[in-house]
């Protein structure tokens, strides 16, 4: 990665919000990186990314096998441009999570069967696990992080909260990304139409009834 993905458009003097208030993930990631950074080039670059330093040209991952080809790609995620040098095998899902640390997008089945990895590419919902990151040069990618923020939620996020459209929450970002895309798709008005349109998003907890209610509330408003 070329620079701190958590705050790509800020100067090094700006404190990153994630550092002010450590989350469970950022705490575990930093402890893990600090613990094993010595001796592995790739984890070293992770440690750099978690610090305040802005790295313009990170060296290619040193533990990549000799015949795997790194490629340069410029990705546009949530309105921010990222220059990346990544293994061509990297899926869009893994790129978002492991390179840009946008971990709102979840990895479920990794084979396009569960919908947990749903993001928008040029406004359309897709399974990010079945897509190579390097093929998305200059396309507009939106993840759950780009949809709304605490205090300024997207109406669909607020509706999921209001209707308890989740239990464990693992499928939720994918459900919401799917639901937001659905608003612009040519489906009918009934609950059955919503169930059909949302069949690519599996909820193991079975929160489907409340998910449908949340989506229908927003559809009636739009």
């Amino acid at each position, binding site marked *: 990665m070329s620079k701190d993905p958590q705050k790509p458009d800020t100067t090094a003097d700006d404190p990153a919000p994630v550092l002010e208030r450590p989350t469970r993930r950022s705490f575990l990631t930093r402890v893990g990186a600090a613990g094993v950074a010595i001796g592995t080039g790739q984890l070293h670059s992770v440690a750099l990314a978690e610090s305040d330093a802005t790295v313009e040209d990170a060296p290619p991952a040193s533990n990549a096998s000799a015949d795997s080809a790194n490629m340069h790609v410029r990705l546009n995620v949530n309105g921010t441009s990222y220059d990346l040098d990544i293994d061509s095998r990297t899926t869009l899902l893994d790129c978002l999570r492991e390179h840009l640390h946008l971990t709102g997008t979840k990895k479920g089945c990794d084979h396009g069967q569960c919908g947990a990895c749903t993001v928008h590419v040029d406004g359309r*919902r897709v399974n990010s696990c079945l897509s*190579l990151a390097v093929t998305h040069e200059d396309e507009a990618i939106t993840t759950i992080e780009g949809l709304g923020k605490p205090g300024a939620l997207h109406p669909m996020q607020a509706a999921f909260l209001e209707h308890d459209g989740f239990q464990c929450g693992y499928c939720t970002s994918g459900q919401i990304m799917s639901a937001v895309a659905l608003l612009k798709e040519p489906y009918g008005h009934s609950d059955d139409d919503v169930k059909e349109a949302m069949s690519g998003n599996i909820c193991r907890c079975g929160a489907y009834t409340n998910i449908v209610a949340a989506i229908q509330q927003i559809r009636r408003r739009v």
Partner: protein
Amino acid sequence: MEPFQLKRVANVSQAIDSANPAASGQANSTSIRFLAGGTTLLDLMKLDVERPAQVIDIHRLPLDQIEAIDGGGVTIGATVRNSDLANHPLIKSHYAVLSQALLSGASAQLRNMATTGGNLLQRTRCVYFRDTATPCNKREPGTGCSAIDGFNRNLAILGTSEHCIATNPSDMNVAMTALEATIHVEGVQGKREIGIDDFFLLPGNTPERETSLKPGELITHVTLPAPVPGNRMVYLKLRDRASYEFALASAAVVIKVSAGKIDHIRIALGGVGVKPWRSKEAEARLLGQAPDAAAFRAASEAALQSAHVQSQNGFKIELAKRCIQHALTLATQTA
């Protein structure tokens, strides 16, 4: 996933040149793959079923147009997304069976990714083909078929051989077969047109060969002939779940009734054949007949006459017959 070299190309001739084994040097033709939507290819690469040395990214080639042909018919570009094809006004109004088939397949996300050309080349969902730990003649010729004495409930009963009983999983291909689509391909040796029924091959002794595409050839577009005026079309899909599931049996029907007699009929079956299954036997039984339950039953019997079942998929004979009868009933109901 095995490492591969990814090539970005700007136009069709670059794509074809890149896929030319003579020019690409290091990679032989069997290890070059075109990548469009990725919904089949990347899935199988993660499973190590597909291990291309070179992947050519064609998803942004200018092959994404749907255009009416002067004098009737339609041209569908190879990289048109399944969702765009299904919801296109011309397809919905003139080729409803194709729209219905596409919308019955996969999920909304996958339909936004999957392309026309990719769907034509969709690989079987046979669990042994997808599992590199088990023998499979399609994946590794000569190793044997694990499905014939294994889990074969979902597999084919029409067109099978002693070497392979894998089902073609596509819904789109079934509708395209009933619509008598023509596949247009381009390679270093020029352009070719292939009728859809000749595009898909029977497994026979070479189940690893699924289509008549030559190494390095690229599907550029598909054409559909003008629909017969006054026809009715239906795609009926029967499956274990109401949505997001492959067909156990499906039927695409294009029918026209004039003065009480059937004077145009095309029937293709999905979920039961090793390829999208055109049933000329069923069509022959219906042509010139009155569209009634007795004729539909006779046609369905004819369609399944050559069925060869395994230990677990015998139910598909009756299921497919009822699927055909119900699809014909729906298509001939007075609105």
